[in-house]
């Protein structure tokens, strides 16, 4: 490690080298659940999810590698590979292309990993490695057109300005051309109407609606059009799922592991919080969020008796492909005592949240029926 790298590390993580007693502070963020100080891995506390758009200061952060410093002035996006003419675009070039706003939910593939048994290595996310934002920028299709995608192209290998420490592999993700050229796949320059924050990949990141967060490459600096997906660690073996479920605690054969793309159908409670107390006979507003990757949410059901009987929740008015939906349910608890509240979403492909998802060797796509225990006081 060079002296400069050490200085960068120390500068990026004040307090890290002098112990962890004082809670760390992250620029621009409200108090967040800290899974790692450096690089930053921050989970959104569930009680922050009270609005359809998750504010930037509450949005979860997952970094694989130390955060690079990229300025708007120095930013360049290189487009090469199987193209008519390789080009290098500046931020101004990206701003000159038609701009599109895409509301989309971003979720880490490992959100909920803490629930799998046997336990798995990796970040022990509970519920909050997810958020919903309005992203704005040019379509990837229009960006690629500046270089001209030539015949034989099948993937776009996307690389950010972050680089591996020591021998850690560089973070490169390959997006199939059909998804890269979708209307809603954009290079975001803005998040919820503000310039993309540094922690979220400023000045430009990929938005791949409905797909796992790993595909949404931050600090995007290179797109290489290719015939085959990149062969690096973050395409294989990382971010893959067994084609068919395996017994918990066992491995699948490498040839049976497939690249993770669209996310699962899922819902969870925002209110009430686990362990909340409420009086019997008074109305209680139950609410939460639901999303379904590339599909649409068509139904959310709630059970107030641990899953014996289910009733439809009301879906929120914001209804966009790729963005989560709010839902709510009015409950008037009659009987005092402990109650298990459950939520279960169904999507446009007919997928329904399971009681428990299939265990998988990396702990991806946890989407069990959500359960929250509350106490009704008589």
């Amino acid at each position, binding site marked *: 490690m060079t002296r400069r790298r050490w200085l960068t590390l120390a500068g990026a993580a004040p307090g890290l080298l002098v112990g962890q007693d004082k809670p760390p502070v992250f620029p621009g963020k409200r108090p967040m659940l800290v899974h790692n100080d450096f690089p930053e891995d921050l989970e959104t506390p569930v009680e922050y999810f009270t609005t359809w758009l998750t504010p930037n200061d509450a949005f979860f952060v997952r970094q694989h590698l130390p955060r690079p410093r990229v300025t708007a002035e120095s930013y360049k996006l290189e487009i090469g590979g199987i193209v008519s003419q390789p080009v290098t675009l500046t931020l101004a070039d990206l701003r000159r292309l038609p701009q599109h706003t895409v509301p989309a939910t971003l979720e880490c593939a490992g959100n909920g990993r803490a629930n799998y048994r046997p336990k798995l290595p990796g970040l022990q996310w509970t519920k909050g490695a997810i958020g919903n934002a309005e992203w704005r920028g040019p379509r990837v299709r229009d960006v690629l057109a500046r270089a001209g995608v030539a015949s034989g192209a099948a993937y776009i290998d996307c690389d950010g300005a972050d680089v*591996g420490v020591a*021998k850690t592999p560089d973070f490169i993700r390959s997006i199939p051309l059909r998804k890269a050229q979708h209307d809603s796949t954009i290079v975001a320059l803005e998040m919820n109407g503000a310039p993309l924050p540094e922690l979220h990949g400023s000045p430009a990141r990929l938005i791949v609606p409905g797909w796992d967060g790993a595909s949404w490459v931050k600090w995007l600096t290179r797109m290489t059009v290719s015939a085959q997906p990149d062969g690096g660690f973050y395409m294989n073996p990382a971010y893959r799922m067994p084609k068919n479920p395996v017994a918990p605690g066992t491995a699948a054969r490498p040839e049976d592991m497939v690249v993770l793309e669209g996310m699962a159908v899922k819902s969870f409670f925002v209110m009430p919080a686990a362990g909340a107390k409420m009086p019997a006979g008074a109305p209680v507003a139950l609410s939460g969020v639901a999303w379904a990757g590339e599909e649409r949410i068509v139904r959310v059901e709630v059970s107030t008796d641990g899953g014996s009987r289910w009733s439809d929740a009301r879906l929120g008015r914001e209804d966009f492909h790729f963005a989560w939906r709010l839902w709510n349910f009015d409950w008037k608890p009659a009987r005092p005592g402990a109650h298990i509240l459950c939520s279960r979403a169904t999507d446009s492909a007919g997928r329904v949240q399971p009681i428990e998802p299939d265990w998988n060797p990396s702990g991806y796509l946890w989407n069990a029926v959500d359960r929250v225990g509350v106490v009704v006081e008589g």
Partner: protein
Amino acid sequence: MIAPFLLLLLAADPAVLEKGKAEEKRSCLPCHGLRIVQVQRLSRATWERELDKMVRWGAVIKEREALMEYLVANFGDDKPAPAPPLSGDGRK
């Protein structure tokens, strides 16, 4: 092959655990914070695989046995998982 009771003796030795804790700082901190290590609860076999991966990724581990004993003693899969702490307010 090391007899299991020898491993137990190693694990019980506070000096070994101290050495492992120092090794964690020395070999992990150059690349990442320690919290991501300490929030996990893994079996001995899984910790071994994690260390193998980190060595492939450039970690220079000098006291591997002590590090392993420290990890298993403090962050084994028989221990309850800690709740992640809240960060300070960074909006100001």
